[in-house]
């Protein structure tokens, strides 16, 4: 952060309502020269890019905000950046307000607030094409005169008007600070000068008045000053009491004052050629997609199709990566000298990382579909469609977007819950979000479904395996709803949760370029994760599976000795019969390969069973056995508490180190071939289902716990989350395995 504070580049902040094309404009201005990080101390994304040219400009993409009266952490950041409240984050030199031309009145509310911060302001009047389609004609010259700031009409999605904006941003002389043109009700106005004076030492002159207005109506904003300017804090509380005593509607005074100015401005600059009543294309699509009966059915079908596609479309790419991983291992084994280091590379790193990397195509497909839903505007509709169901469990449709985001990863899902205004709804959403099946579970689902569940078509278009995959997601979703209901009914019993209001953005054609770049970002994140966590864990797991090295048991040593003796005798017999010694040795070695491998496999299995990981698995095996899990699965589950997909690396390492007999490099083949001492298979379809259900419900992700701690500001809720989810996982797997056995499905 410090670099941006000390930079000599001109700093331009982009601000605007959600869905006004701000991110499209940011991408156009900065291309690939973007850096994404977090603002200090908060998990709000900080997107900064660079507009090359003369002079180069640093562009900050502020979170979408309806106003500078923040109601969420995202909106608060936008305000704090403009007011210079963030340590290490310099106040921008220029603010570009991106405005939706088809929704001018509401958008100008934010513009009027930005103008009041005293920062030089430009208005980027975007989506003028949509305004024309809606029958609106805007006199931009007149608007410029009325506002007192430059207005640049544009259609960012078609790259129209962006050149002019760049030119204005680069001009040496910044636009002058606009004069305030609106008035607040007199009873509020008369108290302002004294309060403004109290901020003299803390806020630049132009920004003091807006700071006072925000603190007058917003407790969170006022809290910022409690220790920084106690006299101001006390004076605001006194002023609130005075206004309440006078029964003055001061909470609405700012909005009324601003709109009393904005509405006539809009009336003067906008002419309409169409009435209110004509439905738009989005309205007509919504009549079907958000229909009270058809809407939920179509939503369910869409999800089913997505999971089916994720399962089947990714197969060719996965096969390719799988073959590549196998070949790479063989190549290293063939060319490197036999040593413990080679074992580490092949059995630890290549098997561990490779077996997780195989699932990249599926994860990308899932992200692609989620990106498509978001980009077309359907994601917002899902909140609307699901509100009726969500209200039954005590939440609102607003929780749907965080929950759907959790299909990708619980971390952005938990962070997206910050958009919920109701603190109780937010906490419940955070508590149940990890039950939604994230992409880290996908490798586990795929491995066990592909290995142990039947293939075959359902209704011609689906397969049993696709339906099984959908069922995993459905189970997690249903359990999230049940958990939300229980939490609402028995834990968070106070308060009302009837509030639900949101904007439905118009439908639009997906911008595949943006989706593509987002996919690149996601795949980078996945590869880096595989490269760091999984790579590190793979090495640790290999060490745990290889050490301590135990002395071989006498019986196996005796068997090995007997085999060597027999081989030596046979070689001597052949040599005495006239065969060349080297040829005789090769012949006998070949003849006894199977016996030698069998002994080696028993030795390797014996070794891995006594390794650290084996001991860990054996230690908890009695607890996990009722769920159908042997010590290897148990050891995998222990390692998966760091991150779910680590179970794949763990099983790959255990089987690579401990199973030299299995020819196939594919983990699923190794799992299928694994047997208990009595010859019965370790993995049956029932064990696979029990394990799948365990992974649907258990909370095995350190990062999720850490982010939940950060968002709830306590370890209490992450601890409750871990306990209830692990308890649920154990209970459900127990019932499924024991029930299945009782019914003879074992």
């Amino acid at each position, binding site marked *: 952060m410090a670099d941006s504070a000390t930079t000599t580049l001109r700093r331009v902040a982009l601000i605007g309502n959600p869905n006004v094309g701000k991110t499209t404009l940011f991408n156009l201005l900065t291309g690939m020269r973007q850096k994404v990080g977090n603002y200090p101390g908060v998990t709000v994304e900080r997107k900064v890019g660079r507009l090359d040219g003369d002079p180069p400009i640093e562009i900050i993409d502020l979170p979408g905000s*309806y106003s500078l009266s923040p109601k969420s952490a995202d909106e608060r950041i936008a305000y704090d950046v403009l007011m210079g409240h963030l340590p290490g984050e310099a106040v921008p030199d220029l603010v570009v307000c991106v405005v939706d031309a088809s929704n001018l009145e509401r958008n100008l509310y934010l513009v009027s607030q930005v103008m009041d911060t005293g920062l030089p302001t430009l208005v980027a009047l975007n989506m003028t094409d949509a305004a024309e389609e809606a029958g609106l004609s805007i006199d931009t010259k007149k608007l410029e005169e009325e506002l007192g700031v430059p207005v640049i009409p544009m259609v960012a999605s078609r790259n129209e008007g962006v050149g002019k904006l760049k030119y204005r941003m680069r001009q040496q002389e910044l636009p002058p600070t606009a004069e305030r043109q609106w008035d607040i009700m007199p009873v509020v106005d008369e108290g302002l000068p004294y309060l403004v004076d109290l901020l003299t030492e803390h806020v630049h002159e132009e920004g003091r008045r807006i700071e006072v207005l925000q603190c007058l109506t917003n407790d969170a904003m006022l809290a910022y000053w409690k220790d920084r300017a106690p006299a101001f804090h006390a004076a605001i509380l006194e002023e609130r009491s005075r206004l309440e005593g006078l029964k003055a509607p001061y909470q609405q005074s700012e909005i009324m004052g601003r*709109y009393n100015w904005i509405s006539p401005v809009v009336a003067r600059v906008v002419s309409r050629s169409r009435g209110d009543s004509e439905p738009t294309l*989005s309205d007509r699509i919504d009549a079907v997609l*958000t229909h009270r009966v058809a809407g939920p059915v179509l939503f369910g079908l869409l999800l089913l199709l997505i999971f089916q596609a994720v399962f089947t479309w990714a197969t060719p790419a996965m096969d390719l990566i799988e073959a590549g991983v196998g070949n790479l291992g063989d190549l290293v084994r063939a060319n490197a000298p036999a040593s413990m280091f080679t074992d580490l590379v092949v059995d630890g790193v290549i098997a561990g990382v490779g077996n997780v990397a195989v699932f990249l195509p599926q994860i990308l497909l899932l992200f692609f579909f989620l990106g498509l839903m978001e980009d077309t505007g359907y994601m917002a509709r899902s909140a609307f469609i699901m509100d*009726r169901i969500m209200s039954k469990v005590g939440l609102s*449709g607003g929780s749907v977007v965080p929950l759907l985001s959790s299909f990708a990863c619980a971390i952005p899902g938990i962070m997206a819950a910050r958009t919920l205004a109701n603190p109780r709804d937010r906490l419940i959403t955070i508590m149940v979000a990890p039950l939604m099946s994230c992409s880290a579970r996908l490798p586990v689902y795929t491995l066990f479904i592909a290995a142990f569940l039947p293939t075959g078509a359902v209704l011609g278009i689906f397969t049993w395996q696709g339906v099984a995959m959908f069922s995993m997601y459905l189970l997690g979703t249903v359990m999230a709803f049940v958990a939300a209901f229980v939490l609402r009914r028995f834990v968070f019993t106070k308060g009302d949760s009837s509030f639900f209001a949101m904007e*439905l953005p118009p439908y639009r054609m997906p911008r595949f370029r943006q989706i593509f770049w987002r996919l690149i970002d996601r795949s980078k994140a996945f590869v880096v994760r595989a490269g760091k966590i999984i790579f590190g864990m793979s090495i640790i797991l290999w060490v745990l599976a290889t050490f301590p090295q135990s002395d071989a048991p006498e019986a196996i040593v005796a068997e090995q000795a007997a085999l060597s003796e027999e081989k030596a005798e046979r070689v001597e017999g052949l040599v005495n019969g006239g065969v060349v010694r080297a040829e005789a040795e090769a012949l006998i070695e070949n003849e006894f390969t199977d016996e030698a491998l069998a002994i080696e496999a028993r030795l390797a299995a014996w070794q891995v069973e006594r390794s650290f990981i084996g001991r860990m698995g054996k230690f908890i095996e009695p607890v996990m056995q009722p769920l159908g899990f042997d010590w290897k699965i148990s050891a995998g589950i222990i390692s998966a508490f760091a991150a779910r997909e680590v179970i794949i690396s763990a099983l790959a390492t255990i089987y690579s180190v401990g199973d030299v007999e299995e020819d196939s490099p594919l983990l699923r083949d190794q799992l299928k071939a694994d047997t208990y001492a009595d010859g019965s298979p370790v993995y049956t379809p029932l064990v696979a289902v029990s394990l799948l259900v365990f992974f649907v419900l258990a909370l095995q992700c350190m990062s999720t716990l850490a982010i939940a701690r950060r968002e709830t500001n306590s370890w209490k809720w992450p601890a409750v989350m871990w306990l209830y989810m692990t308890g649920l996982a154990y209970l459900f797997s127990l019932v499924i395995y024991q029930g299945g056995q009782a019914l003879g499905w074992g």
Partner: protein
Amino acid sequence: MNGVVVQLAFMSMLPAEAARLRDLGIREGSRVQILRNHDCLVCGVEASRVVLRREVAQNVFGVLQPA
């Protein structure tokens, strides 16, 4: 009721909830067109579409405008 236009007069709800509605353009004095009225109300506010749960909409009062 679908298609009617209402000029909003006042909102009877918690200040924070009213503030959120005002942010979305549902505010005292604004003209709102009711597009659909089922479990949720879909309103047209200028060119934008805002959806409100019925219980929320019941606390927003306005005057019906002539067609």
